[in-house]
Structure formats: structure tokens, C-alpha cells
């Protein structure tokens, strides 16, 4: 079943076209990874899906509703079923880790403080940060912040979780931990996940399908194997960081 659909979406900022005629279907429960070079508009796709930005043209469907023209109030009802992990975590720095994770619960549920504390404890355990409720965000490392951000995003058990560059700026071990968390979260919650990344190892590890965005268009969508074996030279160059030219391999990313 299709849960998210982008139909002929155009996006421009101050007259500069970011992308044109984007079409993408994302099925319920699927992990869709969007790859592409920096500045290609990957994060913009996430922001369109969660309504932080409005498209210049086209339609965006989430759970059978066309949201591109929704007001902030109407959009808030949709957002209660979504969570997002930001590139730089975007934790509320005036609140403790526990308060960050509890934020959505306090805003949108009638849970008692006891119930909230229980959910916070459970979510922090899921991301491997048991007992860190009282730590402040500025006391955490980049990887820990990302994990708190994930715990906060899944506090309300959302149907859809969006990840904006979840492994950017992290060491390979922590990147791998985050990848495993994305996979285990999906297993436990059965949520749909859309992950924007330019780390190919992450993409191959967690994706059901991969879409590649290049120069304002989606040039390829397919399963991990289909993308690995893509005949498109741009996809190949992005995956392997070099251009395949017969027997000789040129290093570098000339095309990108």
C-alpha cells in the first residue's frame, strides 16, 4: 500500500529551481533511502513531506491526503503520526534529555507524569541511553545527540519517521550503530522510514529501496541490488566514488 506519494513536484527558492517533476511512491513499512550529492535537494524532499516547506507545484499525498495546500493547523494533525530526526539533532537545548523525549507526549497526550517517565525510559533504552534522562544536550556527543533525537522522534510511535542525514559527521562505528537503530526501530514499530544520506554503506545496509536524486531529478529508483547493478554511469560513480570507463577506473567525482 502506498503511504507517501510525490506527484510532479517542483520546488524553487527565490527563483532558483531545486528540483523539477519529482515523482516518488513510498510504501507503508518500507525503508526508502534517498541518495544524491550535497545540495541536490534531498533534505528538501523530507521538509516537503512533513510540511515545513510548500512545493512550488505538484501534489504530495500522505496517508491518502493531499497535504501540499494544508494550513499549519491541518498539517499538525498529520504530523502527529510522523517523526523526524534532524541533521544536527535540533534538540531543545534548554531542556534535559528526558524533557526532550517527553516533549511530544506532554503536548499531545493525556499521559500522567509517571506514564511519560516510563515511555521516556523505554525509548532511551531503545537507543542505548538508559539513565541519561537528566543530562543536558550540551553534555552529549554528536552520536548521543542523534540517538536522543531518534528517541524523541519515535516517542509517540509514529507511522512515518524521516531521517535527515542521520550519520553525517559521525565516526564509522557510530554511523553503524545509528544504521542498526534505524533498522531495529522499523522492526519494532513497523514504521515507514525515509532516510536521506550520502553514505552509500548506510544506504545499502538499511534500504528496501533507494532513490537517487541528481541535478533536480530522480534518475533512478530501485532495490539495493538494482541500484548496485545500475547501468547508469552517474549512479555507478556516486556509489563507488569513481567513474567506470572500461578497464581503466578514473578516481574522483568529476560528474558531481
Amino acid at each position, binding site marked *: 500500500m502506498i503511504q507517501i506519494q510525490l506527484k510532479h513536484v517542483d520546488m524553487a527558492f527565490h527563483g532558483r529551481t531545486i528540483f523539477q517533476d519529482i515523482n516518488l511512491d513510498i510504501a507503508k513499512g518500507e525503508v526508502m533511502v534517498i541518495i544524491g550529492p550535497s545540495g541536490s535537494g534531498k533534505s528538501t524532499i523530507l521538509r516537503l513531506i512533513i510540511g*515545513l516547506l510548500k512545493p512550488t507545484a505538484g501534489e504530495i499525498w500522505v496517508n491518502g491526503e493531499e497535504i501540499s495546500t494544508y494550513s499549519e493547523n491541518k498539517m*499538525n494533525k498529520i504530523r502527529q503520526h510522523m517523526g523526524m530526526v*534532524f541533521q*544536527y539533532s*535540533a534538540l*531543545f*537545548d534548554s531542556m534535559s534529555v528526558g524533557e526532550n523525549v517527553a*516533549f511530544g507526549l506532554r*503536548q499531545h497526550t493525556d499521559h500522567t507524569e509517571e506514564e511519560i517517565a516510563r515511555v521516556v525510559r523505554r525509548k532511551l533504552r531503545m537507543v542505548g541511553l538508559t539513565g541519561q534522562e537528566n543530562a543536558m544536550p550540551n553534555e552529549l556527543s554528536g552520536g548521543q545527540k542523534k540517538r536522543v533525537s531518534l528517541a*524523541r522522534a519515535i516517542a509517540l510511535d509514529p507511522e512515518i519517521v524521516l531521517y535527515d542525514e542521520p550519520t553525517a559527521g559521525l565516526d564509522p562505528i557510530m554511523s553503524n550503530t545509528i544504521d542498526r537503530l534505524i533498522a531495529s526501530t522499523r522492526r519494532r514499530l513497523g514504521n515507514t522510514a525515509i532516510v536521506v544520506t550520502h553514505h552509500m554503506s548506510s544506504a545499502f545496509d538499511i534500504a528496501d529501496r533507494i532513490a537517487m536524486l541528481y541535478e533536480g531529478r530522480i534518475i533512478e529508483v530501485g532495490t539495493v541490488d538494482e541500484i548496485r547493478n545500475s547501468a547508469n554511469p552517474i549512479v555507478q560513480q556516486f556509489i563507488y566514488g569513481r567513474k567506470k570507463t572500461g578497464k581503466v577506473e578514473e578516481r574522483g567525482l568529476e560528474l558531481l
Partner: protein
Amino acid sequence: MLIAMLEAFGRRALQLFETTGQIVILFVQTLQQIRRLNIRRTILQMSHLGVDSLPIVLLTILFTGMVLTLQTAHEFIKYGAQSSVGGVVAIAMGRELSPVLSGVVIAGRVGAAITAEIGSMKVTEQIDALRVMATDPIAYLVVPRLVACVFMVPVLVVFADAIGVVGGYLVATLYAGISSFSYLHSISVFSEVNDVTGGLIKSMFFGGIVAIVGCYKGLTTAAGAEGVGRATTESVVLSIILIFISNYFLSLILYR
């Protein structure tokens, strides 16, 4: 040359009108959200923005009352009008000096703090995180600050009025040789309740200006740490300008 100057002037004028319009829109949006007022957050802001500002407001107005008495007593004694000093000080403090100078101090301390805090939240995507978690930033951030400022600035001005008159009393009796009875008697003869209430009404407007301008500049902050610094400066400058301009018109209406 002349055309270029006119163009620059026109551009600045348009910019000013645009900013004013956007601030008015934010104010209207804030009023629309006022039913979602969170009492706990508002009390926190009242403490942070109001109570914490008391020492600096008292210090400023104490010395203002003292210097005002120093200058008036000297001249009034020359013309044998020393029995009017208390009344003049009380009226000047109640109608103009306490509300305006408190407003300016609040713009510097509170307006800057509001813009810096919300501006930092904006550039670190915390405002987006609020929206993603289906929380309206205006209801969550602007409403408590506006309500806190509108109610707390008059409270500060009550204390400021009192300390200003006390400062005047000290200088009048200890330095200028005016008798205690003469100073206090002239206050009761010359000043009316309206002198104080008018000042308090004005200070509610000043509190509103500081909060709305502070929030507006914070929410429209762009371009990283430098942007936060620029927005904070602009917020203080614009608040102070608007306080002085609105003070003239409010005085015109209130003391006709």
C-alpha cells in the same frame, strides 16, 4: 546621484513598512493563539523576564530620580519654589521617566534575550523541530513571552515609580536641604492617580512592543551565529525606537 539617493530612501521606506506589517501580522497571529496560553510556561517567563529584571530597573530609575531632583531642586530653590520639587519629581517619574526608561532597560535586557534565544533556536532548527512535533511556535514561544511582558513591565514600573521618588527624596532632604514634609506634601498636592495609571498603561504597550519585536526578530533570524548577533542588535534598536515614538502618541492620548 539624486535618483540613487531617492531609490535608497524608497528601498529603506519599503523595508520599514514591510517589517512593520510583518510585526503586526505576528501580533495578530499571537492574539489568535492566546487561548492556548500555557500558564506554567508563562509564569516561568514572568520570572525570567520580569522578576530577574527588577534589580537593573530599580538601579536605573533610582539614579534617574536622584539626578532629576538634583537638577530641579537647584533651579527651584533659586526661584523659591522648593515646595514643588516632590510633586514635579513624582509627576515626571510616574508619567514619563519610569515607564520610558524601564521600557528602554527592558528592551536592552529582555528584548535582546528573547531575540537571542529564539534566533539561536531558529538557526539550530529547533523551531522546525517544534513544528515537526505539531507544536505551533507562536503558541509555544511568542504567547507566553508577550503575556509575561505585558503584565510584568507595569509591575516593574510600579516599583520603579516608588524607587524614583525615594531617590528624589534622599537627594532633596540630604543634599538640597528641602524638608521631608515639604517634599512629601508637594507630592500629595501636585500628583494625581492618573499620573501613575497613565504610566502603567503606557508600560503595558512598551512590554508588548519589546516582546513582539524580540520574537519577530528571533523568528526571522538567518545565517548562523552572525545572524543571531545582527537580529539581537536590530531587535533592541527597533524596540527602543518604537517605544519613544509610541510614547509620544500615548502621552498625547492619555494626558490631553
